[in-house]
């Protein structure tokens, strides 16, 4: 039996940032990680572009992870258990297996920071056969960057998520031919800079409103039937074409790793927990941050969010997390796919609402309102669904529902 103030589950950027922050706020922290090293998915993200906001310099994923790992290792208040998998979360305790054997860890507060897994062929009901060569982008990334193996020579990428775009470039540099990226939507969920640097610079076509109709091949992928989809994402059979290839890389989104915490109320949009301003779930002792809460575009933002969550978890553990009884719900107009947190406590000071747009906007102003009172404004030159945005404002004027709107 292990006892601690704050237990952080997951040793990626979110978990490490949350652990450091909880420690800074005076808590004894246990950090558990299922892999044998801290860093999470960052360890396989060998491209650059990380750290611009957090460290104010451009780092690779492993470098970003290394910096955090050094800080965690130097922190005497944090005990790290790698190779440790949480198999059950109970009221202020978890059960684990792995390096510790069968162990129970009691904590006053628990932070979920397990990130996501990739959406699979099954999640998107991919049709056709089930041969070797249909892989998610993250798996390909691990096999190429960590194991040093090339997964195929003729590649098609389904979905234009960031890992897919990054892998289009990576596989091209390793000598594979990336024939095309197919995106079922009319816009990409990937970052603009990745579309430029990973596709356009290598003349890899990105076909919008296109998808894979069917995978062909018994033992190994031999090709795909692909084509256009209509506005309901249904394949238009008359556009059906065949392309010979040996690999289909899926980059079709991420799913928060909520399986072990499936007792918590979740959002239908983000599939992450419903949280308040303190990143606190409906179970007061359970906090959530990073990609398991909602999928971020930038690891820097994951770390910043986790830092907040870690602080609140620490305060909760020492009975210092004071909240107003006046809970204000956060609503949004149909222009947004979601807004987070779900609730804000009435009181003094600044607060932040994160959100994603449903469709592209140009030169619009986003406002946070309480009744007719405008609490905060944000002018957006160009906004896309693929980009997480936020609005920060002084909440002292708010006494009932807060709503996000575009004016």
């Amino acid at each position: 039996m292990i006892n601690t103030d704050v237990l952080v589950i997951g040793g990626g950027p979110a978990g490490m940032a949350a652990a450091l922050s909880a420690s800074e706020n005076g808590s004894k922290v246990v950090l558990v990680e299922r892999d044998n090293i801290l860093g999470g998915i960052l360890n396989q993200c060998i491209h650059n572009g990380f750290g611009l906001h957090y460290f104010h310099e451009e780092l690779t994923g492993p470098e970003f992870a290394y910096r955090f790992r050094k800080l965690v290792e130097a922190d005497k208040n944090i005990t790290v258990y790698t190779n440790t998998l949480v198999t059950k979360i109970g009221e202020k305790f978890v059960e684990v297996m792995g390096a510790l054997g069968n162990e129970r860890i009691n904590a006053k507060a628990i932070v979920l920071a397990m990130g996501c897994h990739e959406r699979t062929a099954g999640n998107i009901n991919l049709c056709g056969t089930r041969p070797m060569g249909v892989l998610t982008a993250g798996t390909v990334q691990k096999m190429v960057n960590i194991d040093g193996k090339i997964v195929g020579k003729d590649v098609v990428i389904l979905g234009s998520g960031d890992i897919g775009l990054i892998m289009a470039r990576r596989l091209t540099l390793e000598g594979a031919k990336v024939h095309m990226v197919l995106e079922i939507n009319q816009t990409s969920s990937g970052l603009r800079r990745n579309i430029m640097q990973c596709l356009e610079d290598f003349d890899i076509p990105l076909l919008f409103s296109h998808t894979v109709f069917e995978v062909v091949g018994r033992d190994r992928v031999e090709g795909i039937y692909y084509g256009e989809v209509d506005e309901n994402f249904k394949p238009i059979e008359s556009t059906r074409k065949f392309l010979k290839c040996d690999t289909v890389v899926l980059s079709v989104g991420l799913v928060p790793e909520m399986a072990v915490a499936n007792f918590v109320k979740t959002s239908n949009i983000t599939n992450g927990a419903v949280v308040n301003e303190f990143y606190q779930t409906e179970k007061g002792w359970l906090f959530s941050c990073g990609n398991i809460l909602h999928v971020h575009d930038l690891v820097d933002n994951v770390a910043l969010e986790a830092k907040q969550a870690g602080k609140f978890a620490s305060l909760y553990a020492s009975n210092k997390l004071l909240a107003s009884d006046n809970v204000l719900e956060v609503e949004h107009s149909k222009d947004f796919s979601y807004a987070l947190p779900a609730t804000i406590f009435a009181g003094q000071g600044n607060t932040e609402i994160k959100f994603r747009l449903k469709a592209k906007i140009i030169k619009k102003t986003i406002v946070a309102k309480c009744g007719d009172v405008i609490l905060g404004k944000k002018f957006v030159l160009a906004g896309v669904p693929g980009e997480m945005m936020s609005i920060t404002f002084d909440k002292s004027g708010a006494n009932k529902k807060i709503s996000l709107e575009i004016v």
Partner: protein
Amino acid sequence: MKIYDCIVIGAGVVGTSIFNKLTRIGKTCLLLDKASDVATGASKANSGIVHAGYDPKPESLKAKLNVRGNKLYPQICQRLGVKLNHCGALVVGNDLEKIESLHQRAKLNGVKTEIWGKQQIQNKVPCINDDINSALYAVDSYVVSPYLFTISLADEAILNGGEIALEEDLISVKKKDCFEITTKKGTYYSNHIINSAGAGYNDVAKILGTEQKPLEFRRGEYFVFDKTYNLDVPCTIFPLPSVVSKGILVTPTVDGNFLVGPTSDESDDCTKVTSKGLQKIKENVMTTIKGINFKKSIRQFSGIRVICGNDFVIEKSKLVDGVINLAGLCSPALTSAPAIAEMVLDLLGYENKELDNLKQIEPYVMFKDKPKDEQQKLLATDENYKNIVCKCEKITKGDILFALNRPLKVHSVDGVKRRTNAGMGGCQGGFCFPKVVENIAQENGIEFEKVLKENRGSEVAVGEIREVHHD
């Protein structure tokens, strides 16, 4: 020159059951298959139901063998340590006359069934469609892992002297004093041959010079749901059967998730999933179960049923003495397999008398499912049980190594998956796939990129980085 009593061609559940049975009565036997593992055809892709036997036409082979097989399953599964879930089955519908006639048929087949009313059905299955008023309940219906059952039979048979040759391509068969079977790898001799090649029956029959059969392939597609999806499916639920199939059923698996399917479409021998098929399942299942959220499906697969007329074909070849033909072993072949093995024994003129000194296998029980004291013992002696490979299914490196060191050697990722469940969870191997490959490569002493996903030609990588160039 070794002459086997029997060579069985085709390592599905039926071929492997026969193989297992022959070794148990002390016969020398070789099991041949072109695949890299047993149970890679129809035996890995079906509903996993051990049917009670109310459905087949009385007096047919299907009826007799189904009922007998169903009776044999509990003892065989207990012997092998294979999970058999006695969940029961409901045939639901509003045509009371049809249900009554099925009940009568069950009686003729000697199968225990009960007619249930609305309240009783709803108590058992809260998610049943509100329109359903009546059902037939088959008490002795089970679910089993069809592949783990087959694999365990193979393991046990090997332990008792049986031999298996996989990745074999049949070239020719000659009959002199005995059969001389030549494959790409070598030559084998035997007194009898069993053709249990399933979808490949006619290919094998051609080489043997035995009867070709008019075979029809039917593709059945399925949805598999995530374990964490908490829709309670306590028993197998069928709609009233149609002419072509038992309809779209919903059934729990022994692993704690549930399946919805199968379709029944004319097909070639290609296990693909189609948008039409999946749509058909979604539409048809609504007549029995309400509120299934298909977004919780983690995988879709299809299997091929081989049909030959209305009944199983299990016969001595009239063209070549010493060959047993097994054709059209579609549903309920999984259930019937142990009984088919007995029948084949009979056709071969062997007495069904098992040896006294037979060995037992260690059951496939993963670390997470072992009793606490056994877990402690393993943790104290083997570091590999402290190493997590598959986080969704909670499978350790120790479990993977256990699977790789069984009587039947396995060297494919899917083979390991069928034995351990590694890769069957929510992320579908997204995280553990490379780790499993690495373990197979290390343990079997082969290169990473030579590891197979399933069969020859499914190597997991094409080379090292900076080695491949596109021409």
